């Protein structure tokens, strides 16, 4: 029986969605550790890219910013934003991007801009950054967010980044380069998208949670298949590797 923290679990879970040979936008935080873990385990030929301009990065310490010099040493090229978001991403060369969000709706559209009305916002959030660019043009999107009823909403306060918009055909209408979200990972479950309707669908429930827990914490009708398995637990090897990647517990926490 492997012991793990919630953060370790989520990183291992996210890492399983990175495939070998893929070009990955990693960002910072849990997604970055997930991408690095994938590279150390099942996806050694994956290529970690930071939107600030670092290509094929292998940081020996975890960066706090996408522009952090910790991304520099050992990367194969250090260029700039038009290179990464323009030539690589908009050029259709990025396979997978990670995004977080304050709110998500049933088509996987994301809000990272405002809570409350646009004209008189209660909270100004960070905004798009490269998020909308990545959601528009990466071939696949992995969304990671904490599971809270107020975050899984019928209508977003503000739609920053496109998921599947209004459903089938809507990304095509806007000539979008990328394919949109393909997986949503929360601290309770994994969700994917029903290929017919492009609506969010429960995929697996993390150990310790039930389907009912998930349903109680979502404000729209979630598609639930007949068979909902448990999410795979991390292996001891994965946990040891992630602590080697973040020895000071910047993202994993000191206790680990």
């Amino acid at each position, binding site marked *: 029986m492997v012991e793990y923290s919630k953060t370790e679990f989520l990183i291992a879970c996210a890492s399983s969605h990175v495939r070998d040979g893929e070009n990955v936008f990693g960002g*910072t*935080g849990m997604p970055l550790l997930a991408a690095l873990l994938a590279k150390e385990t099942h996806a050694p030929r994956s290529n970690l890219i930071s*939107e*600030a*301009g*670092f290509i094929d990065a292998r940081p*020996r310490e975890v960066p*706090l*910013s*996408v*522009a*952090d*010099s*910790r991304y*520099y*040493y050992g990367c194969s090229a*250090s*260029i*700039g*934003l*038009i290179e990464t*978001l*323009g030539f690589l*991403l*908009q050029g259709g060369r990025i396979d997978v991007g990670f995004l977080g969000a304050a709110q998500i709706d049933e088509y996987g*559209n994301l809000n990272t*801009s405002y809570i409350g009305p*646009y004209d*008189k*916002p*209660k*909270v*100004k*959030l*960070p*905004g*798009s*950054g*490269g*998020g*909308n*660019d990545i959601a*528009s*043009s990466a071939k696949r999107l992995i969304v990671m967010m904490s599971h809270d009823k107020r975050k899984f909403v019928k209508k*977003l306060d*503000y*739609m*920053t*980044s*496109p998921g599947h*918009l209004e459903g089938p055909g*809507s*990304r095509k*209408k*806007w*000539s*979008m*380069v990328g394919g949109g979200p393909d997986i949503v990972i929360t601290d309770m479950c994994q969700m994917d998208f029903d290929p017919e309707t492009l609506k969010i669908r429960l995929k697996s429930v993390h150990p310790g949670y039930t389907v009912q827990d998930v349903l109680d914490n979502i404000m729209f009708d979630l598609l639930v298949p007949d068979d909902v398995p448990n999410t795979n637990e991390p292996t001891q090897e994965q946990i040891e590797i992630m602590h080697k990647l973040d020895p000071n517990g*910047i*993202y994993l926490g000191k206790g680990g």
Partner: protein
Amino acid sequence: MEDKRITLEEAAKKVSDGDCLFWGGFGFQRPPIAFSHELVRQKKRNLTIYTCGSEVDLEIMAGAGVASRFEIAFSAIEALGLSNNIRRRVSEGALEVEDYTNLAMAMRFLGGALNVPFMPLRSMMGTDMVRLSRYRGEDKLKVIDCPFTGQKLTVVPSLQPDFSIVHVQRVDKTGNAQIDGIVGEDIEGSRCGKKLIVLAEELVDEEEVRSRPDQTKIPAMYVDHVVVLPFAAHPMMCHDYYDYDLEHLMMFHKLTGTEEGWQEYLKGYILGVEDHYGYLDLVGWPRLHQLKAKKPWGY
């Protein structure tokens, strides 16, 4: 060749109330923090700032009331958390933020540098970034049908601001500016402004520039003024020169959590010192030396 060096105070004096500025640096890397301090000390008002995603410097200019409009993609201190000052000033109505994406802002700078009025890109369509705008109204962006292929495209208006403010590692006195590490959006940004002010950590001889010309990311012909100043990005980082000051950053982020805390920081670290060297003295030279980058890591 002309010696373009002036002091930080002289450089900031060239900026008038109501001016529009391209703001260089990206994330934690090479933000011209010292310039934002001087704008605050000179009590500038109603500036509009264009950038992808600066962090502490945007917080300072929003908090001190120097800037009233931002056209940006991102505001937060990344791993540390939300931008508290910007959040408060937006809620109070003292700051208007016109929201774009990183690529959209980079394209607006590229368009300005190329001297064409707009640039196309494939982001933002289908979202509220297209449907909602603030003071730019209809002029925020447009979605068009490509005249050649019929595909949908977003077009964004190019920017040619009054000044571009860029911080680099090395410069010669004529303005040849060398950047190490990533350039972010500073190639386009430095070329889009009507005037360009370059802040640099180190002054080098023209011969040194000519011995490593591939490192010159901004040739002197673009540069109007040069300000040579150490630790101009503190508490953020400058690749190969110094690391970020995490302790100071965390203190800054904690203090900005309340208006009283922010006022304390503003009075202590910005208004309470004579100039940039006064700020560095206050931070303390032993501390600054600890932050110096180690080879071969660059931080």
